[in-house]
């Protein structure tokens, strides 16, 4: 997994030498709490992913936090409408950094089949998306794959990425 340094090679667990970056990123992926927030059809598949058969807690993600203040990532599960877009953005702004966004399903990724006046054509119009998961709705396995892809991404992030100025809150037009 993350700690690929000395202990894995020597088999001596007493002393761990690793970089701070690797350590922090390993910890971040170990218990990443998503925001318990469903929009539409994909939210039902997201619930399936957490329920008995697929059991998302295997990946340290069993805790859906009802409050954005306690969440590390947001799974945008479903179509985002023009009325909902400011709400989604405000939820994102309330989350503490570091934070990641996973666009689940076609509607969240690009608008899907709802190419019309009411739907935001992809949640990347309002949020910085890290991982897109295709499917209408994606199967739980696909969502798990998306989450593991996100873990992979987080593990390779430079620690300095979340230093500096916090992202500016924006107003949705």
């Amino acid at each position, binding site marked *: 997994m993350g700690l690929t340094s000395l202990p894995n090679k020597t088999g001596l667990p007493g002393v761990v030498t690793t970089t701070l970056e690797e350590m922090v990123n390993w910890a971040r992926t170990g218990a990443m709490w998503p925001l318990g927030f469903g929009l539409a059809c994909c939210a039902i598949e997201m619930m399936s992913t957490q329920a008995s058969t697929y059991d998302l807690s295997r990946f340290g993600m069993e805790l859906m936090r009802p409050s954005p203040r306690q969440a590390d990532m947001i799974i945008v599960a479903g179509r985002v409408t023009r*009325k909902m877009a400011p709400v989604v953005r405000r939820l994102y702004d309330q989350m503490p950094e570091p934070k990641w966004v996973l666009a689940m399903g076609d509607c969240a990724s690009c608008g899907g089949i709802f190419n019309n006046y009411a739907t935001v054509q992809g949640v990347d119009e309002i949020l910085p998306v890290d991982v897109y998961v295709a499917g209408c709705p994606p199967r739980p396995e696909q969502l798990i794959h998306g989450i593991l892809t996100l873990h992979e991404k987080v593990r390779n992030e430079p620690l300095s990425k979340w230093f500096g100025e916090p992202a500016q809150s924006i107003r949705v037009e």
Partner: protein
Amino acid sequence: MTIAPEMIKWEGTLEDLAHLVSPRALTGETVLLNMGPQHPSTHGVLRLLLELEGETIINTVPDIGYLHTGIEKNMEAKRYEQAITMTDRMDYLAPMSNNLVFCLAIEKLVELDVPERAQVIRVLMAELTRLNSHLVWLGTHAIDVGAMSMLLYCFREREQILELFEIVSGQRMMSTYIRPGGVWRDLPPAFMPALERFLDYFPARVDEYEALLTNNPLWIDRTQGIGIITPEDAIAMGLGGAILRASGVNFDVRKAVPYSGYETYDFNVPLGIHGDTYDRYLVRIQEMRESLKIIRQAADRLKKLKGPFRSDNRKFVPPPRSELGRSMEAVIHHFKLWTEGFKAPKGEVHVMIESPRGVIACYLSGDGSNKPHRVHFRTPSFINIQAIPMVARGHLIGDMVAIIGTMDPVLGDCDR
């Protein structure tokens, strides 16, 4: 956190709602509490503005539309058979019911007959959908009032139903399996054994849910006497489905206005007495058992019944693949149907069926072209959410989640 004034504008101002809350709310005597659209127990993106006196709910102002996707307008831009894919995504817990009501409306508009085997498959699928939807209702309703493990049990069984859907249509949820004139394809050979396994397995599971909840003192405390709806109110508010029947009104579209041959099945319509949350729970559990009865009858019929699974009217239904190689006419029909679709006459029809959460009705108006002129769905969640203020008045705020859960709204169904 300061809120920018333009953000407030999105949600309306208090002056807009002054006629919906008591005057005391404007002076600050009672508390206005915003619930949703992001709230774990609002079953989606429902937003409720609650006026509270202490912990008692005086007024509720629901705010919907956070999932309005323009489905009806978008369907007007699509051909009839393309528009079916849109119906799946309205009530995403009961996609087959939505397919069915839209296909029934199309068939009524163009006067298309459905062979008997297709009718039985449709009934089978509609009842499986009802089980699927009721399982999600039970799991989320129970988790809302504190019975955490129910969600895990219900989703365990739900996966099996989704597997059945996957066998027939290749998709777990958005199946688009029911098409005008019949169904997309015949049941694959793997389906009937899987269905038999499910039918052997599931009744004991319903008993298990009842063992966990029906006599559970906590469950009874949280649900009995909560959200009482009188029969008069239920009819006046246009409620349907289990909510209407839990109030003691015997109205089931499957019995009253039968469609797809429901009149030939033997099943009962469970009725409640008190019209409270507990009765609605009992009625829905009984409905699951009745659905199982219907599924079993349909499965028995399918074993004997051989025949086409869709109509052979080539103007509306594509020919089978095997014909394309030897019949020029079949190729022409196939080409015509997949490039421009069929045309429906000028006129309007209205079909209502029993969806898992109530009466779903489709108004379909044709104008002689290959696209619908106007499609409107009277969706049960829309009507059920409308009744929440009436039901919640006088209850404690902690009971609000039980009331939302028992109304079983699906916001995609409500906002369309």
